[in-house]
């Protein structure tokens, strides 16, 4: 947890990897996932880098793998997941893997090709058989005579048209969707010198390539004349038809048909044999492929990482630069030593100073991960900046719960989250792919806390499914009131509304021990009482939350060594915020404590007082809260306003002064600064603000100080803060609004559904039967509207309060995450 408060110290290390051991070193680092490599060859394009040949070889292999994988998938088999630890293989193993997979792929290709050609042959045979057996014969005979008699008078002079005209046949099969086009084209091109009959195959055949069933149209074309024949053949060619010899005699056709069937049977046997062999080969692929795939993927990753290294002048070693957490440096050193010792050389890592901002590394566990996620989705923190996540763990669920306060709803949410937390180690839960489920599951600890806090605030609001519970006896006594004021039966019958007066002795016995008194749920002015309470509570929470944010800025300034900002920024900001809105909070609390029920009639209005404070006026009807109030208020306003110019001009003027002083004696300091360069710490504290950098870089940075930019920046910051204080305080009123909406919605749901159901039948039987659907509706609507919808909206508003109102007081979020080079993703 200690590392949660700010990101870990990350150092730039230079790795000297001897050429012989570079590969093993980097592959070991990939297993550990400690460092993020920096690209030292950014200017070199991808194909001009040192290890591009190796990368390409890996890619070649991957291409083969894809082929094998595709074949396995096509055979309807699944690849087993690789088991055990599979380190990146030594480079010489690549040849072995390559050879094995190539051999396997070649074998597979051969068998596949064999099978394919066999299937094509079989398909041809089947088609031929189908065309012959389709029974065009009898149709043809009639068509023939019919066609001939039709044509006879038109074509030739009467008298034996059949003498010199021999009828020829073309038979074949075509895909159904092409058949109409073929038929039309034949007719157009040959102008009736042919008769074509098409018929669909009853039984679909297996497509030789895809193996899917496909129907075919068989056709038989009879034609006159050789020229037409050529044309027909050309046309059938262009439609990629299968054309088969068609014998004229029926007997010969039958004989051919029998022969074909026999052939196809033989062919099927051969095919079966081939397929058995194929499945053997595929079995070998299934064994070999998964580990090889993982290994080659790792190998490729190693080479890609090596491509980011530069070569030393002597060509004896590769130089890599990498970001590494200081805590992991010993582990890094050890890993390098171990993996390079085998080769008899030693790889070295040492820290070097850096000008660039190091990446941010915050280690999380499964509990803190979701909270860190909330912060990171706003922006990854600057290096070593105060991390809002640990505070978010409490404030986020709390602010959510303020808007979602209901014991029942909170309990449901808590139980749901608890179930997820308890089941988190079950593989089925982890493996679920549903995106919505994954979102919920990822935030299970967040939900758990949100539910828990909602139960707590629910008790404070005294609401459980919008019903009040009276755990303790109420602080109000109706009996006392009735006795004291002597309400008669007639009076009670006439008045449906009665007032309890706390000033009458015995009526108000004392405050309820915890939360809102349950008697309020019966009161007509329930809502206005709660509104006043919740509104004030929102403002108090908001001002505290914002002031906390400003105070967190102190740690940033201290850490980055910018003490002037403490005085010139944090102090004025805090004064401004507390002087105006902190005073408002004080007024609220003071009035709660000071004004009793007895003086309620003449209680002063805080709102009027607060307005008057800014106008420097007073209204005679509004009693002051305490003596000398106007003087105090005037002083506070003047003080707060006086802070604005300090905030606006303080930092820029300070920087300018320091800049001038530095420039007057620029040379003297350079030497002792240069000494710092050698120290490993030089890079650590160099992450101040835009204006200031520590260490040897300071002088150069200072030289670039542009006054107008600094002033502009500060002016924006000042305006944003001062206006922000007002608008953000108002923004916290969403706590009130949302909690009001939630309470009212659940109240409506109870009154409109459940209460109607309960009041339906007096007899036990009727009520029992009716209550089942009514309760179902109530339950579904509670979950859908109150839990999911309202929960989402409260979540969003809590998110906004954290991102906008809280984090902009101190958090810049302009960093980037450390993404170490690791095989972890490839292992999966």
């Amino acid at each position, binding site marked *: 947890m200690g590392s949660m408060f700010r990101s870990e110290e990350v150092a730039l290390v230079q790795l000297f990897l001897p050429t012989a051991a570079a590969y093993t070193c980097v592959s070991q680092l990939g297993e550990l996932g400690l460092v993020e490599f920096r690209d030292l060859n950014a200017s070199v394009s991808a*194909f001009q880098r040192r290890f591009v040949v190796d990368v390409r070889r890996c890619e070649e292999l991957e291409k083969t793998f894809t082929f094998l994988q595709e074949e396995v998938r096509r055979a309807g088999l699944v690849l087993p997941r690789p088991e055990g630890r599979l380190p990146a293989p030594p480079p010489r193993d690549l040849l072995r893997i390559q050879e094995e997979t190539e051999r396997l792929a070649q074998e597979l290709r051969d068998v596949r090709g064999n099978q394919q050609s066999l299937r094509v042959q079989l398909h041809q045979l089947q088609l031929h058989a189908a065309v012959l057996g389709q029974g065009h014969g009898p149709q043809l005979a009639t068509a023939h005579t019919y066609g001939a008699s039709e044509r006879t008078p038109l074509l030739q002079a009467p008298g034996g048209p059949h003498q010199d005209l021999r009828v020829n046949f073309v038979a074949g099969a075509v895909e159904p969707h092409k058949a109409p086009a073929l038929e039309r084209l034949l007719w*157009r*091109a040959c102008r009736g010198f042919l008769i074509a009959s098409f018929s669909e195959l009853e039984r679909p055949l297996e497509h030789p390539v895809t193996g899917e069933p496909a129907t075919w149209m068989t056709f038989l074309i009879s034609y006159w004349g050789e020229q037409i024949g050529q*044309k027909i053949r*050309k046309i059938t060619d*262009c439609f990629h038809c299968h054309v088969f010899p068609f014998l004229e005699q029926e007997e010969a056709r039958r004989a051919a048909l029998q022969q074909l069937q026999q052939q196809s049977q033989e062919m099927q046997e051969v095919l079966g044999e081939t397929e058995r062999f194929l499945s053997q080969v595929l079995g070998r692929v299934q064994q070999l492929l998964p580990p090889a795939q993982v290994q080659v993927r790792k190998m490729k990753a190693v080479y890609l990482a090596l491509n980011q290294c530069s070569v030393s002048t002597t060509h004896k070693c590769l130089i890599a630069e990498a970001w590494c957490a200081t805590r992991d440096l010993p582990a890094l050193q050890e890993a390098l030593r171990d993996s390079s010792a085998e080769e008899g050389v030693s790889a070295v890592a040492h820290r070097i100073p850096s000008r660039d901002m190091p990446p941010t590394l915050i280690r999380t566990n499964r509990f803190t991960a979701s909270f860190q996620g909330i912060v990171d989705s706003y922006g990854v923190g600057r290096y070593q900046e105060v991390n809002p996540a640990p505070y978010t763990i409490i404030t986020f669920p709390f602010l959510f719960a303020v808007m979602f306060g209901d014991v029942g709803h909170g309990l449901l949410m808590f139980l749901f989250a608890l179930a997820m937390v308890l089941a988190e180690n079950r593989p089925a839960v982890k493996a679920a792919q549903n995106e919505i489920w994954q979102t919920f599951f990822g935030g299970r600890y967040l939900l758990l806390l949100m539910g828990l806090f909602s139960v707590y605030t629910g008790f404070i609001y005294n609401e459980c499914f919008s019903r009040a519970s009276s755990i303790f006896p109420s602080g109000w006594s109706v009996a006392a009131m009735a006795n004291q004021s002597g309400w008669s039966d007639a009076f009670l019958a006439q008045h449906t509304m009665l007032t309890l007066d706390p000033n009458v002795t015995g009526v108000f016995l004392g405050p309820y021990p915890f939360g809102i008194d349950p008697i309020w749920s019966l009161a007509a002015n329930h809502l206005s009482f709660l509104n006043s309470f919740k509104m004030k509570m929102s403002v108090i929470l908001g001002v505290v939350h914002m002031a906390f944010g400003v105070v967190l800025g102190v740690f940033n300034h201290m850490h980055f060594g910018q003490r002037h900002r403490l005085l010139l920024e944090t102090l004025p900001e805090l004064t401004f915020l507390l002087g105006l809105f902190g005073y408002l909070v004080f007024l609220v609390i003071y009035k709660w404590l000071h004004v009793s029920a007895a003086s309620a009639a003449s209680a002063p209005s805080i709102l009027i007082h607060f307005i008057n404070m800014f106008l420097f006026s007073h209204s005679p009807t509004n009693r002051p809260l305490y003596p000398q109030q106007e003087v105090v208020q005037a002083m506070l306003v003047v003080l707060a306003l006086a802070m604005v110019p300090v905030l606006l001009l303080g930092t820029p003027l300070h920087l300018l002064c320091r800049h001038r002083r530095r420039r007057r004696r620029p040379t003297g300091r350079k030497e002792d600064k240069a000494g710092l360069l050698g120290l490993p710490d030089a890079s650590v504290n160099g992450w101040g603000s835009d204006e200031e950098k520590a260490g040897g870089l300071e002088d150069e940075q200072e030289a670039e100080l542009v006054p107008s930019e600094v002033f502009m920046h500060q002016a924006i910051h000042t305006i944003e803060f001062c206006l922000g204080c007002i608008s953000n305080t108002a923004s916290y009123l969403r706590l009130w609004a949302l909690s009001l909406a939630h309470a009212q919605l659940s109240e409506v749901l109870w009154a409109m559904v459940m209460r109607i159901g309960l009041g339906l039948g007096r007899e036990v039987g009727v009520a029992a039967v009716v209550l089942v659907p009514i309760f179902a509706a109530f339950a579904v609507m509670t979950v859908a509207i109150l839990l999911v919808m309202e929960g989402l909206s409260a979540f969003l508003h809590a998110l906004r309060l954290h991102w906008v109102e809280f984090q902009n007081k101190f958090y810049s979020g302009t960093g980037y995450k450390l993404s170490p080079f690791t095989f972890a993703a490839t292992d999966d």
Partner: protein
Amino acid sequence: MLEGAELYFNVDHGYLEGLVRGCKASLLTQQDYINLVQCETLEDLKIHLQTTDYGNFLANQTNPLTVSKIDTEMRKRLCGEFEYFRNHSLEPLSTFLTYMTCSYMIDNVILLMNGALQKKSVKEILGKCHPLGRFTEMEAVNIAETPSDLFNAILVETPLAPFFQDCMSENALDELNIELLRNKLYKSYLETFYKFCKNHGDVTAEVMCPILEFEADRRAFIITLNSFGTELSKEDRETLYPTFGKLYPEGLRLLAQAEDFDQMKSIVDHYVVYKPLFEAVGGSGGKTLEDVFYEREVQMNVLAFNRQFHYGVFYAYVKLKEQEMRNIVWIAECISQRHRTKINSYIPIL
């Protein structure tokens, strides 16, 4: 059509327009070209293309990689995209897209007929046909002996049919006639397409008409240029010019009378649009007229993307992609033939 495309355009075509604009954004940038030009081998080129939106389109190609393989794969990709647009389009965009394919169909038909004339096998020529202009009856083209045969038997059902009205003749199909046929078809096609765009009105007309006018003028110039020193008579030449565009009618009449390039140039001097183009020819870098026209075309097509709610983007995208493919093929050819001096004369897409 009603005016005010912005009111109803997106109902039918918004999705596709969004898609085509996304596709346009994936065209290679200047930086990509600079990197491509530095490649030493086709393998390098492939690796570089992998980093662009082309992705792994060459991954399944067996070695060795050749220029024609790259070309085929690129065409396949474009064709896939175009098919997608076409399958998801509604009228009148689908008609528009059909019109776009017609020019490729004309080219394919002419290519096949030329092949048949030279007794080449259909398979070989099919490989050269543009996939965008493919149609089922295409391969049967070689059974036709006269244009009317061609029309009656084969093309009557294709979208090309209406363009054939002017070219029905009983002349045998020899090389010259095929060329005439192509130009007549093209003329008829361009005129019809132009009319379609004009009738459609609105932004589509405003964007497409200048592009098609330029296309028509370009054809007129090229026909003129190619007819110098051939037996084509001046009257016949005039009949081949598309009858619209900036040159129509006076310019075309003058062009029909031109006898050499200088005369053509003096005619062009009257046209502000084309004068700078002709002046750029042969200038720095030895540009040909073709290059200059291509550059102008790219410019117009890129400008088409500045307007919204019109069909011109589809036309412009396909043309730009074609140009990009030509560029890549050019660079690949230069690399594979080790002819690096001219590698930079591709036409950049702005």
